[in-house]
């Protein structure tokens, strides 16, 4: 078990966005978190990565209790998240985007008196990572100029630059065309070979194709858990999706 959350709850002024969620993510698996809109999936992500402080509950990552840590500390332990809206640094070049992550290996970059040339040592590694996600031709472009699908690819390359043990991907294929979806799914599969992936995803064909385990959330609670076959035939899950107008 790489990640273990127990009794996870988040209350916003009397409203429980997430309530008493148990989540166990097996090392090396691809674990999907699905559910209708407003089910608390993204809140869950925010809690696990400490972007939000849980009202109750405990989170253990790699045998270490991370419930009281800051988000940057969680990231440094090897659990790195992505965001629902593509999270690139828009006015930095594609290469610089990846280097920001690689730069972390230097420790804290508080050295304001040193030239940025010190970062050129990371260029080769950055190129290799960009090559891996098919962005070789875009290295000097500002990230803002990239088409949407490429931005997500850049985001994944940046995340991988940290060499995290665990990735949390928030809707990695949202807003993509068929072709980009297929490419991103293949990429996730490839990076998951040596890592653990927890993802929120709406595209059920991607979910069924990639996931080892699926947890279904509805109204902040865990509704069902299991593999795709088990979950997709669960009457409660069907009702939750139909009931809120999603198919």
């Amino acid at each position: 078990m790489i990640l273990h959350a127990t009794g996870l709850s988040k209350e916003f002024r009397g409203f429980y966005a997430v309530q008493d969620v148990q989540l166990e993510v097996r090392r090396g698996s691809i674990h999907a978190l699905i559910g209708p809109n407003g089910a608390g999936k993204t809140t869950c992500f925010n809690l696990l990565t400490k972007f939000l402080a849980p009202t109750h509950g405990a989170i253990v990552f790699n045998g270490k209790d991370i419930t009281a840590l800051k988000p940057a500390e969680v990231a440094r332990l090897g659990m790195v998240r992505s965001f629902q809206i593509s999270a690139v640094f828009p006015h930095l070049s594609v290469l610089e985007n990846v280097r920001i992550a690689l730069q972390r290996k230097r420790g804290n970059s508080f050295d304001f008196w040193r030239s940025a040339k010190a970062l050129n040592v990371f260029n080769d590694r950055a190129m290799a990572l960009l090559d891996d996600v098919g962005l070789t031709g875009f290295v000097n472009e500002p990230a803002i100029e990239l088409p949407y699908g490429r931005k997500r690819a850049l985001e994944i390359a940046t995340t991988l630059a940290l060499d995290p043990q665990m990735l949390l991907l928030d809707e990695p294929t949202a807003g993509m065309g068929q072709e980009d979806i297929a490419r991103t799914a293949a990429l996730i599969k490839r990076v998951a070979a040596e890592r653990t992936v927890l993802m929120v995803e709406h595209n059920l064909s991607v979910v069924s194709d990639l996931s080892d385990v699926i947890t279904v959330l509805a109204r902040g609670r865990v509704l069902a858990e299991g593999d795709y076959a088990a979950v997709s035939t669960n009457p409660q899950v069907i009702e939750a999706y139909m009931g809120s107008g999603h198919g």
Partner: protein
Amino acid sequence: MRSNGASTELAPARTPRHLLIAFGIMVVIGVVAPFLMYPLFAAKVLCFALFACAFNLLIGYTGLLSFGHAAFFGFAAYVTGHGAKVWGLPPELAILAGTAAAAVLGLAFGMLAIRRQGIYFAMITLALAQMLFFFCVQAPFTGGEDGIQGIPRGMMFGILNLENSLTLYFVVLGIFLAGFLLIYRTVHSPFGQVLKAIRENEARATSLGYNADQYKLIAFVLSATLSGLAGSTKAIVFQLASLTDVHWGMSGEVVLMTLLGGLGTTFGPVAGAAILISMQNYLAQLGGWVIVVQGVIFVVCVLTFRRGVIGELARLLKKPL
């Protein structure tokens, strides 16, 4: 194999040539200026140019709008004035004392302010600066409404007689260039890269393991320190430290200079300071109307050329300046 080709074609290995040219032009203007106009006026422009550059480090590259930078500028001026006049410090130590005081003040303000973002950050810095203003009104050593007048210029390092206005000017030019280059280096350092990342997308920078608050605090202290250096130098140039320097209007003026010249550009704040100070000087006979003219310019700038003078020029040349 790829590495060789890659590292040359990638990120510029040295400072781009157009920046060197622009820097050269600035230095040449700086050197000839005292022979074309009053050296004291040119020195004033340089003090405010440094102030604006220090401010730009915070807003342009970190995305933090401080509305209390007068506190660092003005308080440093008081400390320098007091040091030179009452303690009898030589100018270099008086300036150092003022700058150090601004650094300490910056650390205290920064630790309180960086916990909040956007308008709240601006309001906290404004509130703290106002507290300092009223402290300066009351504290005996500032001289209240009179300020500290007749601050001795003295001998820099025991050899440079600052009573000579040309010597004074070139010392100020040296201080300005040192500050300017330090800011340039900071922006183009590994630290500066992280600052830009935080400005662009703070949540993402955090998710990559950067503790954004620490970086912001360091940037804030650096900016405050250099603003203090500008204020200290100003106190020696004018032989005066007064309430005007710590007044919130001064915080507003530095915002205006930076916007007018070009937010987040290397040379913009310098141009903005030169334009605004010249305007105040040559339009002085208009009296209170200068403020109105400034207001109109501000509105025109925001409505029509939001990138500022240098920002628009950079866009025309398609090169960052």
